[in-house]
């Protein structure tokens, strides 16, 4: 019974993927024809069906950018970048969109060690780190087993040689993977979608206005209360804003 269910699920998944591919090509044709609203609708439909890949997000970001919806454009570029952090196209378009963001939030200077560490921990994407971690894990065990079973000869010598290096590489990959997993689960980010939003000191409409943010600003999402979301800026400013004006990356 369970097997049947899994098979059904796989079939429906592949059916969805086929449908998504069709929609994706349709949306691209709209985009190329300059019908950005139609393109947007088609890309959104793919996401609504529960399927995604970084290209859908990237193309959707482009479609929103062409319609001058800066906030949404940035939101989808960020989503695309989360899936594929190494794409130069995404980074280029995201940078271009960010130029038009009104707010300039100074990034507090970080020490060289922190920068270096941060770079090191993001040298590969989460997906790649996961694959590497799993593959190196398997490799390590294969080498171990070979070492245990082989009686002399090339196989044993080779496995003997590679065993410890593979463990060291695995540890590095596992640290990167673990850190990025931790980061992903504990730091959530959002993009301001309203053209202008007043950030208050408390989750209430009558609270003191602390500062104003504009469309496209990336904020860190913290606690939520009612319809309000506590946000933090890169420079450490904290305040509350209505959750509906935020798009979570």
């Amino acid at each position, binding site marked *: 019974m369970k097997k049947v269910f899994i098979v059904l699920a796989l079939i429906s*998944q592949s059916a*969805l*993927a086929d449908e*998504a*591919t069709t929609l*994706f*090509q349709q949306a*691209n044709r709209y*985009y190329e024809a300059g019908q950005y609203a139609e393109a947007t609708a088609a890309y959104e439909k*793919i*996401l609504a069906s*529960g*399927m*995604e*890949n*970084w*290209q*859908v997000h*990237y*193309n959707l970001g*482009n*479609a929103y*950018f*062409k319609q*001058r919806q*800066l906030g949404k454009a940035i939101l989808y570029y960020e989503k695309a970048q989360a899936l594929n952090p190494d794409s130069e*196209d995404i980074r*280029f*378009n995201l940078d*271009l*969109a960010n*130029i*038009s*963001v*009104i*707010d*300039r939030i100074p990034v507090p200077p970080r020490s060289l060690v922190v920068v270096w560490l941060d770079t090191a921990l993001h040298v590969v994407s*989460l*997906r790649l780190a*996961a*694959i590497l*971690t*799993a*593959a190196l*894990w*398997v490799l*390590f*065990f*294969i080498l*171990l*087993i070979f070492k*245990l*079973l082989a009686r002399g000869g090339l196989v044993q010598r080779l496995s003997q040689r590679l065993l410890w290096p593979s463990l060291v590489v695995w540890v590095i990959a596992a640290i990167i*993977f673990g850190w990025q*997993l931790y980061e992903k689960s504990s730091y959530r980010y959002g993009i301001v979608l309203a*053209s*202008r939003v007043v950030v208050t000191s408390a989750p209430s409409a009558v609270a003191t206005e602390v500062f*104003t943010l*504009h*469309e496209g600003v990336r904020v860190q999402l913290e606690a939520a209360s009612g319809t309000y979301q506590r946000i933090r800026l890169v420079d450490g400013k904290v305040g509350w804003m209505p959750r509906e004006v935020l798009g979570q990356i």
Partner: protein
Amino acid sequence: MKFREAIRFTVVGVAMAFTPMFAQSIDIAVNASVDQARIALQDQFTLSIEVSGADASRASEPKLPAMESFAAYAGVSTSQSIQLINGRMSVSKSYNYAFIATAAGRHEIGPVTVEYKGEKFATQPMTIEIAQQGTPPPTQQPGQRSTPAEPGTDLGNAIFLKAEVDRRRVFQNEPVLVRYKIYTRVTVTSFGISQLPNFSGFWAEDFQLPQQPRTTQEVIDGQRYLVAEIKKVALFPQSVGKKILQPLQVECEAQVQNRRRSRDLFDSFFDDPFMARTVRRAVASSPVEIEVEPLPEEGKPASFAGAVGNYTISASLDRAAVKTNEAITLKIVISGAGNLRVLSPPKLELPADFETYDPKIDQSINYNNDRVSGSKTFEYVLVPRSAGNIELKPITFSFFEPRSRTYKIVSTSPLALSVTKGTEEFVAVGGGLSKEDVRLIGQDIRFITTAPLPFHAIGAAFHRSPIFYAMSITPVLALGLVLLYRRHQEKLSTNEAYRRGRRAGRVASQHLRKARGLVGKHDGKAFYAEVQRALMSFIGNKLNVAEAGLVTDELATMLQERNVAQETIDAYVRCLQTCDMKRFAPGEISENEMREFIEQASEALEKMERAL
């Protein structure tokens, strides 16, 4: 600028000694007058004596009456003029004696006598009233500053200039209205301001006066004066303290008739301005003192920027809806009376994402009803940079109202503005972009990707896929198996008991299989021997003992030591005993019996295997 109206030179309070000209014998006339009939103590008055006649120059100097009791002699000036009227030469010689009044009261100036050809001509006595100081008579201080009289002039106080202020105590920046009026009893044909006071310490707003001054008549001290306003100015004091308004000086030409003229009908025919003499006179107003008070500190609003008066403010937008990056005009109008010219633009409190430029300032100022009023318009160009419904906060303006001596704050109503997104491409907004950034904006985003990549469910990640879990767990399990296998192999090679124990089942079943093959062969002995071998080898291997010397009792004891159930041992031993017995028993053993036994034996063996 001329008085075209004829002004009679009327002499009031001046007694005229009139000598009719009967014949040639009497041909001079002596005339005496004082310029003012009423003066204040310590003031100067002039006693003018005019001797006229064909031969007037030959008359002696006038002899003045005793006036020491009430006036001090200050000086004399003389002048002479010669005229030809109706073919007769007329000489007029005038003496102007200046006196300073020294005693209050009504005094009589006695007759002035002039000798001519041995004859004495005397004028009639006159009276002069000298008032105590502090109660100046109406014609007091006309601010007359007479230049030395030209020959034959006897204008006295016929022309003077007066500076009138509407108040003498004002607040800083509160206007003082100053009117300069010329008072005259003679025909003034022209006049011009020769010296303007420098209104230092004031901001002056000149009122436009009609080209032709409007004249009114005023009677001062019984004398009719023609009054004309020649200058009107509103002064806004710029600093605090006592201020002195310097005098205004006017030079005018007046026409004076010969006083000696007879009053007959014939003469009055010629009594017109063109026939009169023209006299130039310079007159000046007297200085005026004004006290300027500072604005009170109490209740001064923070936004106060020096406006004094009475104002209203209004604001409007040229459109209520606008697109981003498009300009709209915010018009602020401040109107009212006061120091409009110095008003600074009101402070705008705009949302941060508005770009503003310096305002365009227009003002229109009226000078009606003796007030400086009007309106000042500030036009701001605003460029909203982001969309949304925005309410512009009320614009406030504060001023000091001198009448109520309080500060007032007026404000506009808030203005609603709806900003929608513009159609133009994103442009550089938040300022401070470097040139390189701006150049980048000219570029477009990169094109979409079209090569379809496999899709996956949203949120699906490799580290959450079954493959990842399999890759994580399988190696560990594999290693465990390998380790177990290795241990087994090791035991097999090093541990005899283990090796035999591991082999026991296999060996026993081999023997049993062999025995099964013997079931239908009519060889009972061989069959039972095979079963016995199976049973014995199993126990021997399991317990790692030599099976050759194994005795049943010994075996049972060893099994008991291994905590095997007695029942199982009994069944096993019974099978062994049956084998022993049947091996040596004579006669044929039936196939059925063998079949039954082998089942029994394998059952016992199975039970034993489980037990061990």
